[in-house]
C-alpha cells in the first residue's frame, strides 16, 4: 500500500447542536464540509433536516475535483 493511502489515526470532532442551531442551511453545511475537508470525522448532535442533507450532497458534489 502506498504511504498516501495509510490511515495514521482518526480525528473526531463533535459539534454540539448549540453550535449550529442559529446557522443558516448554507453556513451549517459549510461548517460541516470545512471540518471534513480537514480530514476530520464529524459527529453532529441532533440531525440535519432533509433539505440540509440534500444541500450537503449537492455542495459535496460541487466541491469534488476529479
Amino acid at each position: 500500500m502506498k504511504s498516501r493511502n495509510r490511515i495514521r489515526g482518526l480525528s473526531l470532532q463533535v459539534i454540539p447542536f448549540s453550535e449550529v442551531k442559529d446557522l443558516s442551511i448554507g453556513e451549517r453545511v459549510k461548517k460541516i464540509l470545512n471540518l471534513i475537508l480537514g480530514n476530520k470525522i464529524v459527529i453532529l448532535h441532533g440531525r440535519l433536516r432533509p433539505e440540509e442533507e440534500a444541500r450537503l450532497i449537492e455542495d459535496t458534489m460541487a466541491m469534488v475535483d476529479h
Partner: protein
Amino acid sequence: MLRILKSFSQRILFGIFRKRNNIRLGFYGPPNSGKTSLANLICKDWTGAEIGSVSHIPHETRAVQFKEKVEIEYKGKKLTLKIVDTPGIATKIDYENFLKFGLNKKEAKRRAKEATQGIIESIKWLDDMDAVIIVLDSSENPYSQVNITIIGNLVARKIPILIVANKIDLKKANMKKVESAFPEYEVVGISARDGTNMEEFYESLFKLAKKT
C-alpha cells in the same frame, strides 16, 4: 344565475383539466435502479420513442432528460405528463468503480465528473416536480441514506410520491423489505425489463396524479 353557474362549472372543469394535464412527473432514485428503463417503457408505450439510453454501468444518465406531452390513456382515463428522468443520486462517486466495467481511466474520470454534476442537477430539479416516482432496486437494501434523503426532501416539499420497487424479476428481489422500509407509502413492484406488473403501476400512477 345561469351565468354564475356556468362560470362556476367552467372553473371547476378547468381546475380538473389543469390538474390532470401536463403533470411534471419526476423519476428519482439511486443510480442503476432502473429510472430510465421505466421512463423508456412508458414513453415507448405511449409515444413510440424512448427517452434515453440505459446501461449496466452506474450513472448512465448524467443529465436531466425530458419527454413532453406523454398522453396516457388507461381504462378510459387520460393523463398528460411531462416525464422528467433524472440522474441517480449518490452520496459518493469514485471513478475507480467504473474501471471494473471496462472503462479506461480517462473515460472513468469523465463519467465520475459528469455524474457529480448530474446529482447537483437532480437535486435542483426537485422543486419543479408536481409528483415523483421513486424507483428503487428491489434486490438492494432499501434503508440507504440516499433513499431516506430523497423521500424526506419530497415530503418536506409536499410533493406526492409513488415508490416503485423495480427488478422484481431478479432472484434476490425482496419486495416485502421495500414495503416495510416505507410503510406509509404505496409501493408497486414491477420489472421495467420485462414489463411485469405495469397494469398495477398505471393504476397507481393515476392515483398519484389525483394527489397533485
